[in-house]
């Protein structure tokens, strides 16, 4: 083989390997096994198997469900995926961003009473970037001309 044929052979082979790897990631069963967090439904379906196991639970904080325990050292709230709801108990102060209706990921385990005992509480910001006081709208006015960008 000439050096050129070798090079182009290597090109073809590496493109094929790359495409196969990408195809596997996209359409293989990897997606089902690669789980960053469980939804409340998945957690409930797991039943007693989930008790004591180290789990990440993700979902939305149910509006109106946040209750501070006496002394403000821990709080209880509900996490939902709009199908099922799990009660979460978290020790310690939640991050500043924590609020009702926000996405959350808690790490911990579920106890026998079905309450998720969180040892770590993360919140996630969604893909919205909004100016405060949307009703005023005055901050947007100077940018009306670039609205279409």
């Amino acid at each position: 083989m000439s050096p050129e044929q070798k090079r182009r052979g290597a090109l073809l082979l590496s493109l094929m390997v790359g495409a196969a790897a990408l195809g596997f990631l996209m359409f293989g069963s990897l997606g089902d096994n690669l789980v960053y967090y469980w939804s409340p439904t998945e957690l409930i379906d797991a039943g007693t198997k989930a008790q004591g196991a180290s789990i990440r639970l993700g979902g939305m904080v149910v509006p109106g469900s946040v209750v501070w325990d006496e002394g403000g050292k821990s709080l209880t709230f509900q996490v939902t995926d709009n199908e099922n709801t799990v009660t979460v108990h978290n020790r310690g102060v939640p991050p500043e961003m924590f609020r009702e209706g926000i996405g959350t990921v808690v790490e911990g385990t579920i106890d026998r009473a079905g309450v998720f005992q969180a040892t770590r509480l993360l919140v996630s910001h969604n893909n919205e970037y909004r100016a405060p006081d949307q009703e005023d709208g005055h901050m947007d006015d100077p940018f009306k001309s670039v609205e279409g960008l």
Partner: protein
Amino acid sequence: MNKTLLLGALGVLVMLVGHGIGLFYAPPEAYMGDTGRILYVHVPTAWVGMLALTAAFAMAVGALWNGKAIWDSYMEASIEVGVVFSAMLLAQGSIWAKPTWNTWWTWDPRLTTSAIMVVAFIGVLLLRGAVHSPSRRMAFSAVATIIAFVDVPVVYFSVEWWETTHQGFSGRDNVDAVMRFPLLVSLAGTTLLGLAFIKARQRIAWARHLEEERAPDLPETPAPLSLPDPSNQKENLG
């Protein structure tokens, strides 16, 4: 003086205008407050990093197709700029994650695949450093670049394919115009700066290529030393 410098200077200027509007004119984000302003740095960094690595992939294909050293020099430059921006991306993300998510790092799919991307391309650079022969260096690193590039679309689509803490795609409808404007300006400026970095780095790679051509490689295995035969020594000494 030269076009690359001019391009870079223009990029910095536009970027600073974008950052200035983002810092001093745009309002704080409704929930994140001033922390949300890191958007104007983070998104352009991600964009330029992935653009550079995509360019590296295209250069790798070109290098293997026609074997000209010019492709190799652009590939080397693009990978290096891509690695620098992607590493900065991880650092910025971490700084943003602490006050918003309440952690410096979590093994979320977007974060994990991004970390793999940085490490994979650092690996390609290490490989380049380890191969002495220019033609083999080009071929080996081009193949490695094509394989490493698999992770780049995975990083991009990770927020679609899997559950993440990282937010999903934002578009025109998700970002207020008052924030979108500085973001787009920063994006344009950072892109120009990134392109200037690639061009400047390519010149260095090309200069080295010319050096290598002028002074070709020593043979891979040096010829054994020919020592004088001791039996002839007396004769030689005369």
